[in-house]
């Protein structure tokens, strides 16, 4: 592989894995398996999937009880209804938080995550620390995210080990009656849809 093959590599020192990825990318292009354009399209596709998709779903479910029922009964159809492409997900389950029950999602075996509606997982979601402590000490993890729950609340930790992808539907914050869906969506953070915290109580500054 020469250095003269039409695209730039980072100039700084690369990690072992980064070097390996660039080497594989160059070989795949050199052998005609994929093209530069394929890679660019894929990057754009990945970047277009963000937690804003999940936030739109949750905000709509908050204001529209019929949509909420459809979202819970058939999440993929609900996504399609508002123009979110969730076809890449095999099966998709909505976990509804209530004053009595909080859900939290982890994949202890790897980093399974509902990417079409939440985008790429945050680094902490993939860390060994989160993957271990979310199951062994979920209340401790929630506390670090600022959520302190009384004992009578039931915490349900979902270990997403197989074909199902989970999204938590956080509770609608008090005092948001009459808000627009767009404003409500701003309260629905990525972390609230993983379930480590509640939705924001007020609009971020």
């Amino acid at each position, binding site marked *: 592989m020469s250095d003269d093959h039409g695209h730039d590599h980072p100039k700084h020192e690369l990690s072992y894995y980064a070097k390996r990825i660039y080497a594989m990318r160059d070989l795949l292009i050199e052998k005609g398996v994929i093209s530069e354009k394929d890679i660019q399209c894929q990057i754009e596709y990945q970047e277009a999937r963000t937690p804003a998709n999940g936030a739109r779903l949750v905000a709509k479910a908050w204001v529209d009880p019929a949509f909420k029922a459809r979202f819970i009964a058939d999440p993929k159809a609900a996504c399609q209804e508002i123009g979110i492409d969730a076809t890449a997900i095999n099966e998709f389950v909505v976990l509804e938080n209530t004053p009595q029950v909080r859900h939290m999602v982890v994949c202890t075996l790897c980093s399974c995550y509902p990417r079409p509606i939440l985008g790429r997982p945050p680094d902490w979601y993939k860390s060994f620390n989160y993957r271990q402590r979310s199951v062994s000490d979920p209340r401790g993890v929630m506390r670090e995210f600022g959520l302190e729950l009384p004992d009578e609340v039931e915490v349900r*930790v979902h*270990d997403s080990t197989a*074909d199902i992808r989970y999204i938590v539907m956080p509770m609608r914050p008090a005092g948001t009656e009459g808000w627009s869906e767009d404003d409500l969506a701003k309260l629905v953070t990525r972390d609230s849809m993983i379930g480590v915290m509640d939705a924001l109580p007020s609009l971020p500054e």
Partner: protein
Amino acid sequence: MTPASGRFNPGDRVTVKFEDRPGHLRTPWYVRGKHGWIERVYGDFLNPELLAFGKDGLPKKTLYLVGFDYDEVFGTGQGPKDKVLVDIYDHWLEPLA
């Protein structure tokens, strides 16, 4: 979801097999050998233990949501009602009398 062909129904008590072997196993260590219950039946899915090695994944395996109490899995330390719920395939489960 596809109709399920598996052996268990919601509410059934189950034990997760305590097994280990090389391969793409989707049953976490911390629940192997533990007692739980079928919370939900998700349907039949291609077997990831075969798919991971380029095979067709057939026959399909029924996937369940299996619930565990904290006392059973991790001992104490969490809220009295807290639960861990894990997606587990039929062939990893045994009926618990």
